């Protein structure tokens, strides 16, 4: 313990001196330095053990190689390779014929090389942690405030005394408060391991009110005992004040946990809503027991995949394009199904179940034959990845957040379409009284096709959302179809508001049961609840009233 500390102090001092010297140096003999750097870099190729590589990374980070940040981030990203033939360190980027490589030392373009002629400089998770810290240190001086912020956050997660100097220097010039706060936590994380009690107590105080999960973890570690029952942390004062701060942090985190749970519930509910709302049209409004509903979602998800294939360079916009495309594809398929099959079955609702079940088998097999039975990779646009960190204890993932909003938008547009437009009026008229609507001059066949197409199209849109959450494969639809039926029935057939309310309440109920009962039992409870609820209200949550109810 002591020795390593001495060593650390020594390293910090040495690095400090090195940095100062480096700053003062005015490139004495350029080529000699370059040669030294080349030698250093080439050692990456021969280094085998983790500790050797770790040393090298630190040496490179502190060298005066102008592109050291680029080399290290290439190493972090797995773009750093060497050629097997002449052991040259290269940046490699994938290319249809293998890799496009560029020399690291002099930046020379070396053309394209077969993928088996180069080998990657491999790293592991420990090295990634080191690299994260080193790169964060290097980018602390970036112009971009977001880069600085993420660098500061990375430093919290990779605390190491080597960075203390750089952090202190960055703090001196930092103007952004958020970055400054993160840097303070980073300092505290490092100081927590210092020898001086005062520094450590200060560090613990600095965590108060931050809710940072790494801080909580390190404070919790101080409370651990070894196998003989002695505390690992021998300084009682430090340990106790850590315990005090920790319990305060945990109490606060607990509250946010509740908020998080509601969010999880709402996001599950919004997925249910999206998958069920199309069914609320085809099943709820038209009375077709549409077993092919899931396959409409599947088609939507595959449309997203195809769109991403068509515009590989614009992944960020692909989702925006995919939404109308999926609506059209699934909608058109829906219209074809309606015209080809369901049209002949009105008045025989149970038989629509059989026919659409057949259709769903055909569609599944069609997708399997066209796209192979393997799952397809749909990438997430950058604006849908990651999470919105409100504080250390609460962060909401963007994709879920957008799906909640998206499902509400879809629902509102649908309500608007049905209630406020002429087409919607016709749709309602036909479903309420077909004969009367017909005699009033409405082309009922055409309206039926449109209504079914609308429901299917919305299922397609749901598929776009699902492609961001789960597998895009031939079985996608089947995993959601049962839940969708439950939601529609629970909410009351033919009532969009009921569908909304049912989806959200089932989602939240599920998420609140899950911590106690586990994922499986929670789901079983919800199903049993639906069965019992239907006994109490045989027509669902919001039953339609009036004469049309009785058959």
């Amino acid at each position, binding site marked *: 313990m002591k020795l390593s500390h001495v060593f650390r102090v020594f390293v910090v001092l040495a690095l400090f001196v090195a940095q100062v010297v480096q700053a003062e140096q005015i490139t004495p003999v350029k080529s000699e330095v370059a040669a030294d750097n080349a030698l250093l870099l080439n050692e990456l190729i021969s280094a085998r053990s983790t500790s050797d590589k770790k040393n090298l990374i630190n040496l490179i980070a502190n060298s005066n190689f102008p592109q050291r940040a680029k080399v290290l981030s290439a190493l972090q990203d797995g773009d750093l390779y060497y050629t097997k033939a002449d052991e040259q360190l290269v940046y490699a980027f994938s290319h249809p014929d293998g890799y496009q490589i560029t020399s690291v030392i002099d930046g020379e373009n070396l053309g394209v090389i077969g993928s088996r002629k180069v080998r990657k400089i491999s790293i592991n998770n420990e090295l990634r942690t080191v690299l994260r810290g080193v790169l964060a240190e290097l980018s602390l001086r970036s112009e971009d405030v977001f880069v600085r912020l993420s660098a500061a956050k990375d430093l919290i997660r990779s605390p190491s005394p080597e960075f203390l100097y750089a952090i202190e220097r960055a703090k001196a010039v930092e103007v952004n408060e958020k970055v400054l706060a993160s840097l303070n936590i980073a300092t505290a994380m490092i100081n927590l391991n210092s020898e001086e009690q005062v520094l450590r107590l200060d560090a613990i105080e600095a965590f108060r009110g931050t809710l940072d999960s790494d801080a909580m973890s390190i404070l919790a570690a101080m409370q651990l005992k070894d196998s003989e029952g002695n505390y690992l942390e021998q300084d009682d004062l430090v340990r106790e004040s850590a315990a005090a701060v920790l319990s305060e942090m945990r109490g606060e985190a607990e509250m946010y946990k509740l908020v998080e749970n509601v969010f999880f519930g709402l996001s599950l509910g919004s997925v249910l809503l999206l998958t069920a709302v199309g069914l609320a049209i085809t099943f709820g409004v038209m009375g077709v027991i549409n077993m092919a509903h899931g396959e409409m979602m599947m088609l939507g998800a595959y449309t997203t995949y195809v769109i991403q294939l068509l515009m590989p360079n614009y992944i960020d916009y692909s989702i925006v394009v995919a939404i109308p495309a999926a609506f059209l594809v699934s909608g058109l398929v829906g219209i074809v199904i309606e015209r080809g099959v369901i049209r002949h079955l009105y008045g025989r609702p149970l038989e629509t179940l*059989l026919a659409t079940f*057949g259709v769903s088998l*055909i569609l599944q097999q069609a997708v399997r034959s066209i796209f192979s039975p393997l799952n397809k990779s749909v990438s997430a646009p950058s604006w849908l990845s990651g999470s919105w960190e409100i504080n250390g204890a609460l962060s909401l993932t963007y994709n879920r957040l957008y799906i909640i909003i998206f499902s509400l938008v879809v629902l509102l547009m649908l309500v608007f379409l049905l209630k406020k437009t002429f087409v919607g009026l016709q749709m309602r008229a036909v479903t309420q009284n077909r004969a009367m609507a017909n005699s009033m001059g409405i082309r009922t066949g055409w309206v039926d096709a449109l209504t079914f197409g609308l429901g299917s199209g919305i299922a397609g849109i749901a598929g776009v959302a699902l492609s961001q959450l789960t597998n895009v494969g031939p079985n996608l639809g089947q995993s959601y179809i049962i839940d969708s039926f439950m939601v529609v*029935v629970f909410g009351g057939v033919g009532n969009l508001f009921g569908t909304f309310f049912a989806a959200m309440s089932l989602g939240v109920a599920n998420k609140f049961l899950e911590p106690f009962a586990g994922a*499986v039992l929670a789901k079983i409870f919800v199903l049993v609840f639906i*069965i019992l609820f*239907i006994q109490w209200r045989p027509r669902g949550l919001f039953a339609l009233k009036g004469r049309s109810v*009785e058959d």
Partner: protein
Amino acid sequence: MINSKIFERSAIGRLLLADKAGRYLIAALLVITVLVPLCNLLMPAGSFLHIPTYVVVLLGKYLCYALLALALDLVWGYCGILSLGHGAFFALGGYAMGMHLMRQIGERGVYGNAELPDFMVFLNWTELPWYWYGFDNFFFTMFMVALVPAALAFVFGWLAFRSRVTGVYLSIITQAMTYALLLAFFRNDMGFGGNNGLTDFKDILGFSLQSDATRCVLFALSALSVAGAYVLCRAIVTSKYGRVLIAIRDAESRTRFMGYRVEHYKLFVFVVSAILAGIAGALYVPQVGIINPGEFGPINSIEIVIWVAIGGRGTLFGAVIGAVAVNYAKTYFTGAFPEVWLFMLGALFVISTLYLPKGIVGVVTQIRERRAESNATSIPEQGAKS
């Protein structure tokens, strides 16, 4: 030899005299009950008349499905209860039988534990859960095969029919029921072997399940059960009681207004149907050799509905024909066209709903009617209306 007069006077005889198709069906079932085992056991392998064992097992499996379809047709075809959860009763009967067969293994399991089935041993269970007690007794098991599905159907039906849950609402909550059971039986903590279910059975009542003779007996039992169940269902639907059921199917509210306790009628027929499904499951398990939660899958239950619809709803014998036909198609397609068989099966479903609204039986009756038009005296077969 049965005197034809006795036949005509006996209850079954009277029943079947008015039911030509039923007569054919019973006749066919009795014939295969005798002939299939004979052709399997006595004919030398390679002879044209020899029926290989795997065909016997396959036919036995179809017959179990036929019994299940019959059970569904009783409630759906004659009482308008579209159950999308009949697979649950089938699976429960199967599990009861499976538990008995598991207990029969005794210390012949791989770990040699006389008390516990293998899957409990390697999950470190130390004693048999209470609900496994009694299943070592065959008669207790037979009783449970009927009781467990009946109890579930009774509780479920009592709740649902009393609150007048009808139509799609009923269908969907039956689906929820089987789905919840599926999830529950998947859990290894339930003590039913989780996803692997119950398997590796050795013998039943001391007879090896691997021997051809046992298989033939099981096959014969399946065929006789289908015949027996057919007669039972026919007796129910042609009785006064059955008329009320049909009235409920066609106009539930009116029947209620006429003073019938609709929920009692429905409950009775639902429970009977569940018992039949349970028996089908119990016959199915020793022949197939495995029971696992997949049988509770909602898709399986939908398939049962499809067998009945394709055969012809509300005819009873149509259910039998449909179950055998669809399953034979499945066996044939999965072997002959493994890559594209789903296209064919899907197309079969679509086409038969579009062009055979009354199923295979409907087509036959139509042809028959047309032929009978010249005679102008025959009474058309009554099909189902939804």
